[in-house]
């Protein structure tokens, strides 16, 4: 089984950003994504999201360059005004071509 090394970008954000974030990662080159419902606390206090559903946890497996683009975009547009965090991990997948 030939494994390919790729990046797993995980974004945790207030729920109402879901559609926006999906559009962003798709536009930046992600071929797919997975969302799980989440809740949590960080440095921000109350959020509107309490009223629009909770947080989401969005994962997308992408090439290193796409991962960087996603982080850049988040830092530019979202980190200031919204409750969002993101982190990157190395993962190994079968069928590497599916993700790039």
């Amino acid at each position, binding site marked *: 089984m030939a494994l390919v090394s790729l990046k797993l970008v995980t974004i945790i954000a207030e729920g109402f950003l879901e559609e926006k974030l999906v559009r962003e990662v798709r536009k930046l080159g992600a071929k797919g994504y997975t969302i799980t419902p989440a809740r949590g606390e960080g440095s921000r206090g109350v959020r509107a999201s309490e009223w*629009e559903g909770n947080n989401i946890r969005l994962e997308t497996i992408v090439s290193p360059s796409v991962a960087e683009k996603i982080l850049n975009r988040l830092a530019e547009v979202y980190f200031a*005004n919204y409750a969002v965090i993101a982190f990157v991990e190395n993962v190994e997948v079968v069928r590497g071509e599916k993700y790039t």
Partner: protein
Amino acid sequence: MDTLELLRINLLSPAVLAFALGITATLVKSDLKIPDALYTTLSIYLLLAIGLKGGAALSTTPFTELWKPALATLILSVLTPLLSYTALRRLGRFDVVNAAAIAAHYGSVSAVTFVAATAFMQAAQQPVEGFLPTLVAILEVPAIVIALLIARRNLGEGSLGEALREIFAGKSILLLVGGSLMGFLAGPEGLKQIAPVFVDPFRGVLVLFLLELGMVAAKRFRDLRTVGVFLIGFGIVMPLIQGALGVWLGSLAGMSVGGAMVLGTMAASASYIAAPAAVRIALPQANPSYYLTASLGVTFPFNLTLGIPIYFALSRWLHGGS
């Protein structure tokens, strides 16, 4: 029935007691949790049911009866956000963004407060106009739009277009307006078919909803210190002013004692479904602690417990009653 008796009836209604139970649950750190899915279901249900009932009533209301109350509601929807915005800027020294954000909430309506007011009228055996739910839809939207326009005029750009789309396509308005249309087209005959779901259980469902809202409001209590004394006072005084204005305009428009009271309560209430969503999109810089704590932690409990009987007493007095 004097005002004290009305207060007693209201405070001992199942709805208010459920709210108190919800607050208690949070204060004693109970593990009670209302599932998200239930909360969403109850919201969908309440908004749709309000719409359906209003629409069905509308379909049998002559326009001559409707236009004056509708106009009064429209006037309220313009006046109240301006009033709130001015008070917040001048007296509260809030910045443009936060003042506009809070004004959007106080200009708009809380559907649950509306429902609690009509339930109270039922318990007090006071008839109300059937088309009242329609006024909720009229009052909900313009206030938000006006508040966002103010912020935009002062800030320069901003994605107002998207915010407007969000408001109109937002589930809150969609269900309210969609439900009204459904009720209007299906008529009283159609409503009767679905009454065992959308009419009879209404007040019982409100109990479940208020149990949850009590828990949420109690969580807001923790932030009361952060938001400052002014906003707490604002959350009590502004409803009284807007409520009085609503009762008075309703009476002028020829509405009944009960109808004017419910319109007053609508004006006095602060939105916490449609407005937060719109504000989060159009004014993401605004601090949710302010608008959520004021509307949910102060104004909602105030209206539910004291406000409702006060607006009723006021309406009776304006109508020359006891």
